[in-house]
């Protein structure tokens, strides 16, 4: 079967009309030495069954996906109920783009409204938008929003925020007049100390912290929020592991002003870095400065409920130069996946998953700390990730663990922080079995001998 919709005669007519002899003439402006000038090296046409078995053989070469993995650091392995994938693949959802003529797409607006409602309930905040591209760009938008709200240009970002989130924020804001300063963490606790905020002053638009932070440690969000508010700055809280919200005190209760989170943990598989999902929530008084789309509920003259895009004057298709952000879309399908995940799990289910994560991680941490020469350098409470200090280079230990035991043991921190080359980050979720954790411990024991 051919998939080219027009016939050779029709193509000939079109070429004649534009004054060319062949389709190849269309590419004349591309220099000959960069043109391929040969057929692609692919097999002859295959029967469907041959194609499938060929693809299966290729897929079998991907052994990495089958190894037990203790990687986290912003991308988490969680169980996703099959209903999530099943429902998002319905064509009404799967093929529809973010609504540009919104009110005609009531179904889309309804699930976005549900998504926003769930994000508010989860974070304890008053208003959430229709989602952002991912957690890191959501942070960049949050920083810009704080700048708009406070009309101040300095932002302090804790060093315990995911280093790649910091990089994205710097890239995103590099051409504005924003000044980013970083804040050191306490080497003993592994988190920010509320007593050590010397650069927090009345020039600050925001203090940015992450909890659980990049080392897995839970920050004292309330104390840091109070400090930020005492100088008129906003407290921006980053959450890279959204499952933690099932267990920890909500950001709203801790008086955070803006909460940005990565929603990948909610039913979105690990797949080479994307697509991800940015959650963005704030207090109602800042809603005019919120970036992104916002769905509201409204009633028509007969009292029937309907959904509308609301407060759209913040968006760039209304007044480009005054817009709060360049974003005029959202992660539609991925936000839907997260919505179905949250609705399937429910409050209790999410709490149970969170508790399992914390308990399994605590078990793994205790077992690893009992190995001779290994320790846990940070004393602060943790959720499902923790830093391990090995007796020798983390890079060496992790690469041996992979080659000799086929275990992905964690993330070496040397690529982000040069001071402690023996440190690595271990993440344990509900998908790690007790056997896998015990094998990790045995593996580390043998390799470090």
């Amino acid at each position, binding site marked *: 079967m051919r998939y080219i919709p027009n016939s050779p005669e029709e193509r000939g007519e079109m070429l004649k009309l534009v004054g060319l002899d062949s389709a190849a003439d269309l590419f004349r402006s591309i220099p000959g030495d960069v043109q391929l000038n040969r057929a692609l090296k692919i097999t002859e046409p295959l029967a469907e069954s041959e194609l499938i078995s060929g693809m299966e053989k290729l897929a079998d070469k991907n052994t990495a996906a089958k190894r037990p993995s203790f990687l986290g650091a912003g991308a988490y392995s969680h169980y996703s109920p099959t209903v999530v994938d099943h429902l998002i693949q319905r064509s009404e959802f799967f093929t529809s783009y973010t609504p540009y003529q919104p009110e005609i797409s009531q179904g889309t607006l309804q699930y976005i409204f549900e998504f926003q409602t769930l994000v508010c309930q989860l974070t304890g905040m008053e208003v959430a938008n229709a989602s952002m591209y991912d957690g890191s760009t959501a942070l960049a938008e949050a920083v810009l929003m704080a700048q708009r709200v406070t*009309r101040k240009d300095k932002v302090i970002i804790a060093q315990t925020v995911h280093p790649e989130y910091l990089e994205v924020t710097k890239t995103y804001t590099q051409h504005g007049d924003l000044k980013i300063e970083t804040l050191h963490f306490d080497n003993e606790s592994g988190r920010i100390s509320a007593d050590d905020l010397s650069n927090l002053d009345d020039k600050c638009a925001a203090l940015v912290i992450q909890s659980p932070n990049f080392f897995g440690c839970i920050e004292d969000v309330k104390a840091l929020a109070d400090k930020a508010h005492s100088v008129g700055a906003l407290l921006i809280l980053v959450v890279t592991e959204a499952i933690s919200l099932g267990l920890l005190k909500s950001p709203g209760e801790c008086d955070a002003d803006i909460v940005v989170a990565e929603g990948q943990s909610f039913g979105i598989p690990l797949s080479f870095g994307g697509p991800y999902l940015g959650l963005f929530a704030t207090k109602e008084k800042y809603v*005019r400065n919120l970036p992104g789309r916002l769905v509201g509920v409204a009633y028509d003259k007969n009292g029937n409920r309907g959904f509308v895009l609301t407060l759209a*004057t913040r968006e760039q298709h*209304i*007044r480009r130069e*005054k817009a709060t952000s360049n974003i005029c879309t959202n992660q539609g399908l991925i936000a839907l996946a997260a919505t179905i995940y949250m609705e399937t799990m429910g409050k209790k289910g999410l709490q149970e998953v969170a508790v399992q994560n914390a308990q399994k991680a605590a078990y793994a941490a205790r077992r690893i700390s009992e190995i001779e020469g290994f320790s846990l350098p940070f004393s602060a409470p943790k959720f499902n990730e923790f830093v391990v200090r090995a007796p020798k280079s983390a890079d060496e230990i992790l690469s041996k663990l992979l080659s000799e035991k086929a275990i992905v043991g964690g993330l070496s921190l040397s690529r982000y922080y040069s001071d402690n080359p023996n440190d690595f980050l271990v993440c344990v979720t509900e998908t790690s079995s007790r056997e896998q954790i015990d094998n990790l411990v045995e593996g580390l024991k043998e390799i470090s001998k």
Partner: protein
Amino acid sequence: MANIPENLHYSKDHEWVEVKDGVATVGITDYAQHSLGDVVYVDLPRVGDNLASHEAFGSIESVKAVSEVFTPVAGEIVEVNDDLNDTPESVNADPYGAAWMIKVKMENALEADAMLNAAEYEEYLSENE
């Protein structure tokens, strides 16, 4: 027929100005509020901001559109009507009273004299109807 008080100065952008002791109070006219329709939000600047003549100092959002508001006179903002945050509808109900927007300490106390008076503004409106 739009309400056009005698004692105010008017701009062709439909702002009014009342000058007292070198301080100009600025708002939008009855004609402007009527054209905008129901006002749902007023975005105002902060005290201390400096404005040049005809610079946009804020925006008014109605159910129909968002429009910028311009200051007819240059100077420093000394007061802002924060009540409009909670009662934007007063722009429709009382444009010359409760819905004043900013007070500007004028750089040039005579600047408002170059603006339209009530009769001239009324004529301007009738020409542009």
